[in-house]
């Protein structure tokens, strides 16, 4: 699964996370895609906008809902060299959240900067 197998092509992949975790499985299964794309040595960025910012909120505790708590995986991304995590400022503010509520270090972007980021990638996937 090395880059050689893909003819040395390195593309810029942007994963746009717009959905809350748990209510639907998209956030969890999207994370599985992100991890795989790292194994392909692609240039990976993650954007958290709208309800996607809820994915990386601290203190998720799934004991009583019996669901799988996948939030620790976001902390593990660094180990896969996935370090470009972008969060939209306006999305945080609308939800009464600040950077201190998040469980991973991120770069906070304005909506305009987020729009620029979306334009600068080869493959944009939104789950």
């Amino acid at each position: 699964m090395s880059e050689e197998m893909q003819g040395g092509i390195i593309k810029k992949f942007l994963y746009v996370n717009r959905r809350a975790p748990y209510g639907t499985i998209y956030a969890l299964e999207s994370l599985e895609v992100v991890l795989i794309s790292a194994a392909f040595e692609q240039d990976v960025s993650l954007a958290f906008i709208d309800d996607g910012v809820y994915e990386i909120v601290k203190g998720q505790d799934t004991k009583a809902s019996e669901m799988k708590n996948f939030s620790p995986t976001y902390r593990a991304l660094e180990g896969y060299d996935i370090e470009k995590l972008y969060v939209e400022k306006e999305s945080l503010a609308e939800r009464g959240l600040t950077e201190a509520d998040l469980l991973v270090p991120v770069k906070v972007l304005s909506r305009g900067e987020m729009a620029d980021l979306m334009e600068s990638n080869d493959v944009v996937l939104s789950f």
Partner: protein
Amino acid sequence: MKLSVLVNEGPYTHQASDSAYLFTKAALEKGHEIFRVFFYHDGVYNGTRLMVPPQDDRHIQKRWSELAEKHKLDLVVCIAAAQRRGLLDENEAKRQGKDANNIAPGFRISGLGQLIEAGIQAERLVAFGD
């Protein structure tokens, strides 16, 4: 009190199935009677015995089947919704000329009338969905 439960979404993709299961279990623990659990729309997928979730995750079909066995629950999968989506029991597979079936223990396939009956006979009908 006599309650019925409606499950409109499939396992894992939506939390609806989890919510319905935990609600049903809590109602039974409180001594209420569950007249029926009816699976409609993508809810029919809860009843496939072919699912193999990751080891560290809940097994949604088994959980339903075990609850049904323990409490003699009536788990009914809508036939029209099931046919469209590929959920068959042995009879249906034979009738449709299919070489396999996938229904799980404790589930039965029947008509939509069973949902209306669940609404009529139970004192409350509680729906979970997308």
